[in-house]
């Protein structure tokens, strides 16, 4: 059976069920009222305070930085404490602006930047032979497996729950914030929103448009990884990072 035949078969069953089955209770046929996203009426200081409170509650380590120099100092401290030798980072304009590479190079740390075009030696027009691209991906994967620390930015942060919002894309790998045992995320206070309800229309670009478009992967990170699967004892650091550092950039 072809795909569309399969699809039609199931949809037909569903339609039949809906026509002959139990009538949906009153209200079931109307679109329910869900609270539409409201623009954040809180000011940034309030949001920042709430974000820090929540992030720390779930085990994140927050470092406030008023400018690039403070951010670099924080990173220097983190790298020193973790004794990091190998770091993988997003190819992100903010991270470059902050000059984080200098700090790391000075400390003798090997830094891999997730720029696939460069790593695959792509031409100006954007072409690279598929094998080189695959090789480059495999190279980064191998580095990630050995990396002590991963650095990313964050598109947004949610104050209500102390959550970082990251989207995958060119230069923004997924595993860099999941594989290494330590994750450092740099986020600007101006990208704070109050809640998930406020965030989702922003992230899907659906404000003022009919159809939302999501990135291939949008993920929400709240604290380091955890489990309670053995005797319900809380253990930090399972498959994801053991330590989550958040460098919060914004005037104090």
């Amino acid at each position: 059976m072809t795909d569309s035949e399969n699809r039609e078969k199931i949809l037909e069953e569903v339609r039949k069920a809906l026509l002959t089955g139990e009538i949906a209770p009153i209200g079931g046929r109307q679109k329910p009222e869900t609270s539409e996203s409201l623009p954040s009426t809180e000011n940034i200081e309030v949001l920042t305070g709430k974000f820090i409170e929540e992030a720390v509650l779930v085990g994140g380590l927050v470092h406030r930085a008023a400018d690039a120099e403070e951010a670099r100092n924080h990173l220097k401290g983190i790298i020193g404490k973790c004794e990091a030798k190998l770091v993988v980072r997003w190819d992100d304009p903010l991270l470059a602006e902050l000059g984080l590479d200098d700090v790391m190079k000075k400390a003798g740390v090997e830094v891999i930047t997730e720029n696939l075009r460069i790593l695959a030696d792509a031409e100006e027009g954007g072409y690279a032979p598929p094998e080189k691209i695959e090789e480059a991906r495999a190279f980064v994967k191998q580095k990630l497996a050995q990396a002590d620390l991963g650095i990313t930015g964050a598109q947004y942060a949610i104050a209500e729950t102390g959550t970082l919002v990251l989207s995958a894309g060119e230069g923004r790998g997924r595993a860099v914030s999941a594989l290494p045992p330590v994750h450092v995320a740099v986020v600007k206070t101006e990208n704070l929103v109050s809640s998930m309800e406020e965030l989702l229309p922003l992230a899907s670009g659906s404000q003022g448009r009919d159809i939302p478009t999501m990135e291939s992967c949008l993920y929400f990170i709240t604290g380091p990884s955890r489990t309670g699967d053995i005797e319900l004892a809380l253990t930090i650091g399972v498959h994801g990072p053991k330590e989550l550092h958040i460098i919060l950039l914004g005037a104090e």
Partner: protein
Amino acid sequence: MSRGQDSFKQRYSRALDEEFLQEALERATTRFRLGRSMSLGDIEDFDALRQQGKEIKEYALSQLDVNLGALADRVEEAGGKVFWAQTGEEARQYIADLAGARGVKLAVKSKSMTTEEIDLNDSLAEVGVEAVETDLGEYIIQLAGERPSHLLAPAIHKTKEQVAELFSEKLGEDLPNDIGALTLAARRALRQKFLNADMGITGANFAVAESGTIVLITNEGNGRLATSLPPVHVAVVGIEKVIPTLSDLSVLLKLLIRSAAGQKISSYVTMVSGPRRGWEIDGPREFHLVLLDNGRSRILNSEYRQSLHCLRCGACLNVCPVYGKIGGHAYGWVYPGPIGAVITPLYNGLKENRDLPHASTLCGACMDVCPVMIDLPEMLLKLRRDEAEQKFGGLWERLAFKFWNYGVGSEGKYNFFSRLGRKMQSPFVRNGKIAKPPFPLSRWAKERDFPPLAENSFRERWADMENDRPSEEADG
């Protein structure tokens, strides 16, 4: 297909005897209940939110065909592939064929009840694919060859000593009885699997139609790794999981995560909308969404449609007095507790699972905590009615109710049989109760005592009181 050859009675009897299981169930259910209540502290009107959740689910199902179509279209637009599986067998076949075509030797799985429902791991093993569970609890029970005992914490029935022994044996290391060390050992072992896997298989907690997005909720990070590292990602999703919009999602996320783990949000929420794009450095090259019917459209067309609202949070388990004593294995399949008692007969046949709807005191605690207000007691009653109508119940029970039906048919008959009963019971009454009535009541009395019928019926006593009372009306 029910799991195991033994009966419900054998399974729950075993469970009642296992001391550690009893302790573990007590601990787990108490902890989860407490966690849930505490996490509701910052929500002003949780019941209003639950009502919203219920309406979202009702609306979503009432437009299921439209939503499914939209979901599939969006996923395909983003470069993903959609497979529509009417049965578990079709889904298994598709995934096995895909694995074959891509030369898959190793697959990593993020926790998915749906894949357990269709026995996916078995059919992958048949085609030479090693499918490794990566959720720590699921990993433990996979190594032990057992079934999950709780929806969220599948291995709570195991002591840390048992886990240490299991890991030491299977991983070839000598591990101490220390939970931290054991977790670290699992992390090390599973990292290799993540890095070398050819395929990542997940379920999804929700599928959002308007954006073609599936949503994974985890705390360990295994969902993130399974959807970042392997070149192929397969998501197996029951058709009832589709919801219309992203704003519906934020309501249901709040409800699910608080009801399940007592957190405001899980450590990781991953929203996947197709395969990787363009120059992304990692992420899957291919994304396959397997939409599974497997009886859901049949249930949609029945009085039990509401059971499809279930978010699989496990809150009902944690308050159920029956589950709290017998644990997940006793239910014999993949879904335990009150929801399991309803859907196991619906998916696998009422005849084979007729004991489950009776494993309930109908206390209603499950409905009180359900984040989408599913009327579980109502459905358990309906299943009992179905069982009676289809005559699966025992012969003696049917005769007893036929007799009862006759005996209460009129006032005269009722009075007659009551008086007869009062006379006939006297040899059996000891110390104000009937502990050993004759057969067939003796079967029912094995674990209960009957109170005796009163010497005078209420109506007789009322009539006596009426006669004795001085006439007050005469005085005006």
